[in-house]
Each structure stands twice: as C-alpha cells, then as structure tokens.
C-alpha cells in the first residue's frame, strides 16, 4: 500500500494550533467585552462575529483574497511596511482561519463569561482585587469550560475548513496545502486510497475531539457545583 505524503497533516496541525492561539488572544477580550457591555451596537458586532457560520466559505475567502492581495488594503499595508504579501502564504491562512473560526471561540467564551455574572466579580472587588486580578483569578477559572470549548472547537473547526483555505492558500503542496484540500486533490486524481486514509483520520479525530469536549464540559460543570 502506498502511503500519502505527510506534509498536509503537519501543515494542518500547525495551522490549527497557531489559529487556536490567535483565537484565544483575539476572542477572549472580544467575548469579555460582548458579555459585559451595555453598548447598543453590541448586536451588530455579535452578528459580524457570527457571519462565518452562515456565509459560504468561498465568500469570506474571496474578500480575504482581495484584502490580502498586493492591491488590497491589508496587502498594500504589508508591502508598504516592507513585508511579504499575505495571499498564498501560511500567515494568510492563519488570518483567514482565525476569522472563519472566530464564532466557534467567541460564542462559548461569551456564554461562559455571561454565566459567571456580576456577583463573583463584585465580591472579588470587595476583597481587594483590581480589574485584571478579578479577570484572571475569578472570571477565567469560573469560565474554564468556555475556554475548553473555545479551544477545541476552534482547533477542530480549523482542521475541518476547506473553502477559505482553498481561496487564500492557493493549494501549494508543502506550504499551504492542508488535509482537507489534499483529500480533494486525491479524489480529483482518482487516488481513492489516500483520500480514504485522510478522510477516515479526520472523521475519527473530529469525533474524538467532540466526545472529549462534551465529557470534560460535563465534568467541569459538576465540579463547580450549584
């Protein structure tokens, strides 16, 4: 039996891991703000964050391609700063994946922060904890199931994406070709064995991740008590 190239697997894992880290850095403050603000335009931001849930990935990918390309605003900015263009690069993939998976990180975090409520934070303030201290020692630990969901869903969703990557990654083997795209190529080339192996691997991986999330989520909620 002929084993397929492993490069797409490594690129996929590296992309998912990087995206998860970026998602946490961007999603946590955004979710915190959404959970606590009384700003009326909040719903517009929420809708914007949720857009990737309903938008065809090709639409997002198309706009990103234009924005990141040498004539787009982001691409032009990068070039003006002496950097590389972002389209068809790994960095471009990370930007695309982050936007595409944003709702999967922001929504569980926002729900978790909302569930923490005002009272524990007020209690922490009366005990002498400043704003950052309160966030790190009260909000984050009490919202840990939200962080777990955000990380695993963000990771798994990035592993499973196709359209956005294809549009802005360009399917360059060894650089921007991820598993889902590689499977597509294998099918196109009628190499069903390779397509089978990767498809089965992704199926099992996704199932295990989700099962683990639900299990840990249940256990954390039990541990926090009523």
């Amino acid at each position: 039996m002929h084993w397929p190239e492993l490069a797409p697997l490594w690129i996929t894992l590296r992309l998912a891991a990087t995206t998860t880290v970026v998602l946490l850095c961007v999603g946590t403050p955004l979710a915190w703000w959404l959970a606590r603000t009384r700003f009326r335009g909040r719903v517009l931001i929420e809708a914007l964050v949720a857009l990737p849930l309903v938008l065809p990935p090709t639409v997002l990918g198309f706009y990103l391609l234009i924005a990141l390309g040498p004539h787009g605003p982001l691409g032009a900015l990068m070039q003006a700063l002496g950097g590389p263009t972002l389209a068809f690069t790994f960095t471009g993939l990370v930007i695309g994946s982050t936007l595409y998976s944003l709702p999967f990180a922001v929504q569980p975090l926002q729900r978790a922060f909302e569930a923490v409520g005002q009272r524990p934070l007020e209690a922490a303030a009366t005990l002498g904890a400043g704003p950052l201290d309160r966030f790190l020692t009260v909000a984050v630990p009490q919202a840990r199931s939200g962080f777990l969901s955000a990380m695993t869903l963000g990771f798994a969703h990035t592993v499973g994406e196709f359209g956005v990557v294809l549009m802005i990654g360009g399917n360059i083997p060894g650089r921007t070709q991820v598993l889902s795209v590689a499977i597509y190529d294998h099918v196109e080339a009628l190499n069903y064995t390779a397509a089978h192996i990767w498809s089965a691997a992704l199926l099992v991986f996704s199932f295990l991740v989700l099962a683990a999330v639900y299990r840990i989520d249940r256990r954390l909620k039990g541990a926090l008590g009523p």
Partner: protein
Amino acid sequence: MSGVQATMRLDRPGFRLQGDLETPPTGVTALFGRSGSGKTSLLRCLAGLEPAMTGRVTVGDVCWQDSATGCFLPTHKRALGYVFQDAALFPHLSVADNLAYARRRAGSERPGPRADEVTERLGIAHLLERSPAHLSGGERQRVAVARALLTRPRLLLMDEPLASLDQAGKAEILPYLEQLHTWLAVPVIYVSHALEEVARLADRLVLMEDGRCHAHGPLVEMLARLDLPLSHGEAAGAVVDTVVSEVDEAYAVTYLDSPAGRITLPGHTLAPGQRTRVRIAARDVSLMLAPPGATSVLNRFPARIVELAEDGPAQALVKLDAHGVVLLARITRKSRDQLGLHPDMAVHALVKSVALVG
C-alpha cells in the same frame, strides 16, 4: 476618630436614593426598612459598587468618594468587608483558598484580626478543606463573614446575611454575629428587614423609607418611638440591656440587673456577669395604677408615662419610663380611658413575659 460619614444620591429609573448616614467608630448600625426602600443600594453606594452615585463618603479620616473634588476610590481600594446575601463564595476555590484570597490582598499596614483567630471565632476551622458547594447555608455565611474580616476592613457591610437561611440556619449563625461587635473595633452596617434580627444585633438603627433615611438613633430609643412604625404592629416591643446577676438553679430562673430593677427570666443558660439583651413585647405589658398585690407576675416595675398614641381602632400604645428603662405597653383604648392615663402619670407595669434576644 469618626466612623462613617456619607451623603449619597443615586438616580435610577423609577427610584431615587437620597441617603445621609453617620455612624460612630464602632458598633452595629442597622439599616432597617421594607424591601425596595433602598437599603441594599445604600450599602452598594458605600462600597463603590454604584458608579452613578454622587455625593460624599468618608470612613475614619479617609475620603472614599467626593463628587465635589472628583475623588473616587474604586471598590478594591476601599478598606471594606462586604458580606453578600448569598455569601458569594468562589465556587472554584476551597474554603481555605477563599479565605486566602482575601488575606493575600488585605493591606498589611492596617490592623486586623489574625486568620486563625477569625476561623476559630466563627467556628469554621473544620471546614477549611471543603468546597463551598458542600457547605450548609449557615456555614457558607460564616465563611463569608470570615473572608470579609480577613480583608482587615475599616468598615464591615453586611447585606441581609440571614435572609436566605431557614430558621435553623439563622439560629446557628446569630450567636457568631452577636459576638462580632464585642471584638471588632470597626463600624458595622447591617441591612435587614427582620426586626428580631435587628433587635438582637444592632446598637443603632436607621429607618429607611422610599430611598431616604427616615429616622435614626440608638436602637433602644428607636424601637420605642411612637411616631415610627417600629413601635406599631404585632411584633413591637422594647429591648433592655441587662447584666446577669444570679442564676437560681432550684427554680431554673435567671435574675438580670437593669436600671429598672431586677428582671426574672425563665431558664438558666447564662452565667453571672454576662451582658445580655432582653426583649419585652408591648402586648405582654399591662398597667396598674396601684402597686400590685399578690400576683403570679414576677416582673413588675414602677414607671412613669412618657407618651401615648393610638394603635389602630381599638388599641393604644403607652411609652413608659421605668428608671431610665423605656418600656412599651399595648392596651385597649377603653382601658386607657377608664384608667384616665395621661403623660407624666405614675403607674406600675406588669410584664407577663420576657424573651432573651442575645
């Protein structure tokens, strides 16, 4: 050295708080009033939890807030302890870690009780390893009080700490709260809508109505003021601070010394020398013009009528002064008129029942 001095104003849709509060440097001040009268809002204003509040809050000689000068200390910089109605323990930390959370952030330059002293006084030393989820309601509140004390507060705020407890839970925690002000050298502000609780714990009382501090004064005086709703209603009565003089084991009664004379109390659980507060319900006091002859009523005091007031269509309230001890008597209007009672008249008060409140 002064306690709390505050002038607070808070406007919310449909509600306005306009509270002026002054407390001595020690002792328990009860904020008493119906739900919705603004007690909790006032407490939150003192704590800095209502950013929209305007006015002035000074504790000791430290300014916590002054809208005139723009000074504002955020909650975490105010030297206060706050006990929430629902305890608000951190569910992700053990009892010991909840306490440590407060201790680590307490200003070490402020005086305050030691951790082992606090856990022992509140009877929670055996609970330290537990999770808050596995505590009873009363235990949770005791931990919350301990946690508040470990911040080394200059002001302790308590927001109906007993309201969410059942009778057994209340009975369990009250003795701990009672002894608080015997060793705590900071002012305590205690919000409650339960008169028995206030009668047990407070030294002073502030009556709140519609967002205003309607009246304030020493508890004993406030409970007996006929112009306030506190002296009306079924539960009305006077409290008397006494000292145990003697315990009669043979009859299972305790004798208490008060300025009015000796008070006999059924039961013998107290020790001589102990300070204790008793409550004499207005409905349990009857009046006689002549000194009583042989009667089964043990507690009787010569007294002078201070003031009279109507209490509903059939009843009248009589405020008495028995050698400096204020008593209330609720009698019928008919007997008031038959006896021809009027202020300054000398009478004898017969007290059918005396209840221990603390």
